[in-house]
């Protein structure tokens, strides 16, 4: 075959393939010019009770996604990432892709560091509606690490409990409130968070799941933390 014909064929294939691959994936673009992140030699201490909300299908991967939700109300999403050892930290605002119908939106998260080295539950991702510089919290979108984009059956809420007994109470289920005992992390460093609450989403009847985090330290109840989780279209149902 003539080499010009071969080149034309290759160019046509590339031109055809590129729009297809782009169309398959919605990307939330970074609002700022560069990713605000740090990997310190010394741990930074976060004062937040909820460090992250991730799909239980997460895996050790550097690609980060957020599940879309029909209840989502803001065009911006603030994403905070903290490692369990407290050494890695980032906070960035992303613009939600307009007119996206995708159930999963990839974040334009090109980290300078090797996030693959963090195991499945060693990196907490908290994505909530709003600009990081304007709002300090809001309704939470479920995050995902890795390539499995199936709608989750359950969520992992990563909590900095202050070494207390922690319970997650699902308050707006159609079947009535349900209390789940959370699992403390005992091994390794727990600067970022120390407890995992695995919350099923299969029997939630609405587009949002209201979770109240209750913490008990010996004979004292600590102040509860409430978070609203925006659920995907068909979360494991």
């Amino acid at each position, binding site marked *: 075959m003539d080499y010009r014909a071969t080149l034309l064929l290759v160019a046509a294939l590339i031109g055809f393939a590129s729009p297809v691959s782009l169309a398959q994936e919605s990307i939330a673009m970074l609002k700022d010019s560069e990713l605000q992140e740090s990997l310190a030699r010394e741990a930074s201490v976060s004062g937040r009770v909820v460090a992250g909300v991730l799909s239980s299908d997460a895996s050790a991967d550097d690609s980060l996604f957020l599940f879309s939700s029909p209840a989502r109300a803001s065009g911006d999403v603030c994403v905070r990432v903290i490692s369990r050892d407290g050494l890695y930290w980032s906070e960035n605002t992303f613009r939600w892709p307009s007119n996206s119908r995708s159930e999963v939106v990839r974040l334009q998260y090109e980290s300078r560091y090797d996030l693959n080295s963090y195991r499945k539950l060693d990196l907490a991702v908290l994505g909530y509606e709003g600009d990081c510089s304007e709002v300090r919290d809001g309704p939470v979108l479920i995050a995902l690490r890795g390539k499995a984009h199936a709608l989750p059956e359950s969520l992992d809420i990563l909590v900095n409990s*202050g070494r207390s007994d922690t319970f997650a109470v699902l308050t707006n289920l159609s079947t009535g409130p349900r209390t789940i005992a959370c699992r403390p992390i005992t091994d390794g460093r727990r600067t970022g968070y120390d407890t995992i609450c695995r919350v099923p989403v299969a029997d939630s009847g609405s587009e949002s799941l209201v979770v109240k985090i209750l913490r008990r330290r*010996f004979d004292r109840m600590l102040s509860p933390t409430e978070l609203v989780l925006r659920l995907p279209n068909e979360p494991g149902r």
Partner: protein
Amino acid sequence: MNPVGSVRTLLNGTRRRGRGFLLAIMKRPRKIAGLFSVTLVLVVLGLFLDSRDHIFTVNAVTETASLVTTDGAFSEWRVSGASLLTDPFATTADEIELPENAYLLIRKGSEIDLQRHGTRAAKITLRAKDGRVGSIVMPDADDRVLGSWASLSIVADGRPLVWPFRGLLRVGDDVTSGVDSILLSGTVNILEEQLFRDTRYNAGATELDRGDRIRFWKHATGRAPKEAVVEGFFRIEPSNQESFTEPQNAIQLIAHGGATFVNIERLGSSGYQIKATRWARFLYDPLLAFIAGLGALLFAAIEVYSNIREMIRDARHPDE
């Protein structure tokens, strides 16, 4: 045969042989020194490479400690006058006052958290993944079987509380926001087994810093390290102690057990391990120190002897 004569002959023979051996040494000092050096190096190498058991002892004052019991019979704690809660969502109105001489019997596998700030009440939370955490035994009442969670608050009045344990121990807490109880001070001592004798010698001590979190680990060859079982006791000094000394703060803790290393987690560093290094044996092992000293002394003697011999030879043959 005359017996006196036989003994004399024997002694003379021994003397001759001894003199012959000394003469042989004097004639070949370098060969003897070489042989001696090789033997000494082999003995020292053997002592250096020999793997030995270590007992780690932690002596600490801490505001918090956690424990997973591995022996139910060992964990019977006096909890006289304690306030008991049996439901994590209970309020102070649901508290149950325990009578004098009430004892907490802790089941094997229960997780226990302890906390005490200053000389205030000591607090215990017990939880079990499945089943019960234990029971409360009271002298004039029925036993109270506890569920999968319980919390007690105890004021040590008049006399101290001593709570023995056997299990997996974590002393202190890794500092982060929300953590209000930490290790205050302490030391880790290592006792190493001595060769040939059923005794141990102190193989080093390390001071702990405020805010450290420590755990004991055992490492078998070819396997991942796992937490080591240790024994010890917590001591809660009375808050109204009538003595010349001030009341002791927090929880006094002694724990010891066979382990490979003690791991320390510390805010602001990636943590480190305390273990008995083989090099430390030259400092602490009495046998190794004695052999090393003896070797040095003998080498010095050989050196002095060689020099004197050369000096004598030079004096006898000044022209050579």
